[in-house]
């Protein structure tokens, strides 16, 4: 039987991370209890149940959800979803969301003084294929300021939400871009304890996914915890 890959002190950020100020009143105060995996943790909804009833147009191509083309640098983000044994997870939902090229989200409480793009929402999803692969076409998101500390800026990132096979594998994370100078000073990225684990969240520039005359490609593989 495959091992249970739970929270790891080397990989997962601690709940309480003082340099990320919002954790102060939100980090759970009780110590976590180790939960033996039971039928609930080792089951999950079928992917059809998670995609039925959604009305998003062209969910895996975020550049074709409106009448016109969004502004910014068109990119392709592709990769695989794997379990802890390195096995691909086919037929699993991958949800993404992000800011536009100017670093502005389509969200009522985003007050950043940067323009919205009428041709870009920044929301998508897809289901992995038989090899566990996903592929999104989107726009490279911009960095944006936040209020965590004076002159705080989030590095460019795309949010990822993954389900895997079951409840134990559920993961929400962020994908970053290689060479971003803001990574070194971002309290959220830096909350990940070990450098190797931080690096796993940085996409790799990938010529093999680049489409000539059209879009640059990035590779991003995601390895889920829990137990398949």
């Amino acid at each position, binding site marked *: 039987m495959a091992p249970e890959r739970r929270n790891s002190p080397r990989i997962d950020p601690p709940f309480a991370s003082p340099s990320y100020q919002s954790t102060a009143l939100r980090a*759970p105060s009780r110590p976590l209890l180790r939960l033996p995996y039971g039928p609930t943790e080792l089951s999950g909804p079928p992917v059809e149940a998670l995609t039925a009833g959604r009305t998003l147009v062209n969910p895996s191509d975020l550049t074709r959800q409106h009448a016109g083309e969004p502004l910014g640098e068109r990119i392709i983000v592709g990769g695989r979803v794997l379990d802890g044994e390195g096995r691909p997870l086919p037929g699993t939902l991958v949800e993404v*969301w992000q800011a536009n090229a100017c670093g502005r989200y389509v969200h009522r409480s985003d007050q950043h003084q940067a323009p919205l793009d009428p041709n870009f929402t920044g929301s998508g999803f897809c289901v992995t294929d038989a090899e566990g692969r996903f592929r999104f076409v989107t726009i490279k998101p911009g960095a944006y300021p936040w209020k965590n500390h004076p002159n705080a800026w989030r590095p460019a990132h795309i949010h990822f939400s993954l389900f895997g096979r079951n409840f134990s594998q559920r993961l929400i994370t962020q994908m970053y871009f290689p060479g971003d100078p803001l990574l070194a000073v971002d309290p959220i990225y830096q909350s990940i304890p070990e450098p190797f684990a931080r690096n*796993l969240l940085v996409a790799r520039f990938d010529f093999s996914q680049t489409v000539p005359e059209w879009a640059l490609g990035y590779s991003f593989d995601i390895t889920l915890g829990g137990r398949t």
Partner: protein
Amino acid sequence: MSGEVRSAAQTIGPFFEFALPWPDGPHAVAPGTPGAFWIEGRLLDGAGAPIDDGMIETWQLGPPGIRGFARSATDAEGRYAILTVKPVSIAGGGGMVHAPHLAVSVFARGLLKRAATRIYFPDEEAANAADATLMIVGDDAVRATLMAASSERGYRFDIRMQGRGATVFFDV
């Protein structure tokens, strides 16, 4: 070292509401399902203030034929609501049972990773007394943080991240 290659979690952040919720999301069962009820409550921070940019997901194994998954963003008062029916009791080993429960994921700005907990039902005393997980929890006051309360529309279940009555979360 085995088990150490894995993608780290990162916060859901404050700006997911245009992307993750969908109209049918809060419905673990279709509206109109016989016996359906709401589980609703508030997500509260360590100062007792509502967390108005959180997301609650629930998963339950059965009864057969239902979706069993629900997703609800919290509103300005920190409220979430999901529509479901009571899950079934499942026999475990050694005379234990898995009492009817929902597995819960809590996501929010300020939570760098998922906080996982469970919702149990107060009117399942016999099953709860034989539930292996509740037994691990031990202390009655802590166990009480996993117990929903009956309400007019179904059940009420508040989630407190810190302080008096803080919810117990699990390492999943």
